[in-house]
């Protein structure tokens, strides 16, 4: 019994210790951001590997999610003779929820894991140490550009996800199931609000981008510098990011739409 308590206490302390280290790292990253201003190339390179290389999975997933929404939405709406509203259903689901959330989950699997593995391996192969000995701060040179790139890429990826999703819904709803094309677009235009819906979705994906990249960068930097350590860190990135995104999504949704 005492052992159990002791273990629980040790684990609890461990969690807080990691949280503390992660927060310190975030502060260091934020404090080093100004060094990126004269060197935008560093960020652009990372936007390419974090954002552009994630495009395929985002576009393909977005299309399929939009198509499913079109099909399911039609089947439900047609019972009430409201299939004209399909565009609204598809667009609101995507812009408010599925766009930011699914993009963040895909991002964790595609880009977050890659960031963790890359930074973890740089640590394991002493590249981070070598940077320090060359008087180059690895937090500013390696971590900060990746953090900024992830933070900026997430809302862009989410926007692309939602856009192709709307087209996927259009393809199924209008193209295959015969919903009126004018109704699909005009109802969407009428009911989707720029501030309430689109901007809130953007805020969500900025928050997810912040959290997802923070976790990925921290786990890589904090990884035990062995192959096993890097593999564990990569797994933790995907698990923690997914949990954090889903939990945060509930909180943000409650704050934004819960009145």
């Amino acid at each position, binding site marked *: 019994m005492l052992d159990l308590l002791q273990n629980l206490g040790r684990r609890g302390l461990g969690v807080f210790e990691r949280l503390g280290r992660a927060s310190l790292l975030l502060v260091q990253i934020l404090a080093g951001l100004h060094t990126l201003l004269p060197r935008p190339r560093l960020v652009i390179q990372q936007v390419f590997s974090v954002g552009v290389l994630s495009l395929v999975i985002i576009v393909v997933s977005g299309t399929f999610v939009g198509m499913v929404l079109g099909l399911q939405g039609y089947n439900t709406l047609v019972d009430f003779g409201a299939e004209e509203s399909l565009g609204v259903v598809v667009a609101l689901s995507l812009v408010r929820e599925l766009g930011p959330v699914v993009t963040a989950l895909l991002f964790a699997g595609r880009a977050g894991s890659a960031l963790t593995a890359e930074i973890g391996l*740089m640590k394991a*192969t002493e590249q981070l*140490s*070598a940077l320090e*000995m*060359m*008087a*180059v701060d690895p937090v500013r*040179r390696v971590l900060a550009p990746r953090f900024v790139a992830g933070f900026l890429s997430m809302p862009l990826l989410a926007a692309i996800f939602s856009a192709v999703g709307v087209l996927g819904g259009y393809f199924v709803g209008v193209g295959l199931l015969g919903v009126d094309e004018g109704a699909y677009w005009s109802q969407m235009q009428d009911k989707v609000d720029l501030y309430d819906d689109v901007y809130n979705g953007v805020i969500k994906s900025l928050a997810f981008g912040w959290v997802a990249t923070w976790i990925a960068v921290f786990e890589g930097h904090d990884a035990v510098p062995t192959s096993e350590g890097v593999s564990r860190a990569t797994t933790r990135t995907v698990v923690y990011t997914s949990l954090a995104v889903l939990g945060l999504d509930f909180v943000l949704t409650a704050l934004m739409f819960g009145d």
Partner: protein
Amino acid sequence: MAPQRDNDEPLVTIRDLTFRRDGRVIFDGIDLDIRRGRVTAIMGPSGTGKTTLLRLIGGQLRPERGSIRFAGEEITRAGRGRLYELRKRMGMLFQNGALLTDMNVYDNVAFPLREHTDLPEPMIRDLVLMKLEAVGLRGARRLMPSQLSGGMARRVALARAIALDPDMILYDEPFTGQDPISMGVLVRLIRTLNESLGLTSVLVSHDIAEAASISDYIYLLAGGRVVAQGTADQLYESDSQWAQQFLQGLPDGPVPFHYPAPDYAGDLLAGDEDREAAA
């Protein structure tokens, strides 16, 4: 070696250095001088903290007690900014080179120049080619680190380490896992670079013959202390048991062959009793 340098103040002075990791004492009050213009070897059995010593000199680790002075400045109390300034005057060669794997040989060598200077690109090109020529790899500048052999990676890392013309180079086990040819290349490079660039070299190694052949002075570490020091000849003639065991590779001596264990005969009999008890 110019004789007047003997009177010079050492480049690195270590006094009463004590360092502990996970409760284990790695260094227990060691004193050590690295003289300017010399190649100083730090040798000792595996696990005596030779690499740790380099990290302490580079300021990547902080000691529990004692002082490390580099060119008259206290490393152990230097702030982050000051430490980074001092590190520009040190180069470090990591055991496996630690090249940045996302850029080619040329960009790796150019990296410190681009980070720390505002030199125009044509001048950087000249400098990089000069450094690569010095290690014999000018022709390999378009290769990626994954295409290099272990010895070549270390030579590229060496070119990178001398890119900013440092005062001192720290070599971490430069000969480990090298075939005789690349070992010979590295041995010659370390010595000639030290002479031609007026460097001070610190060499951590347990390859006795190679390290002894190019070192002006050798410190032998064991059990957290300096157990012997001197030139290679002095060490070979010393009556220190540590030195003799290490230099001759004797399996038993101050570093015992047997891991600490209870009395052998007693242990065997106890095993018997255990079995009887089990039965």
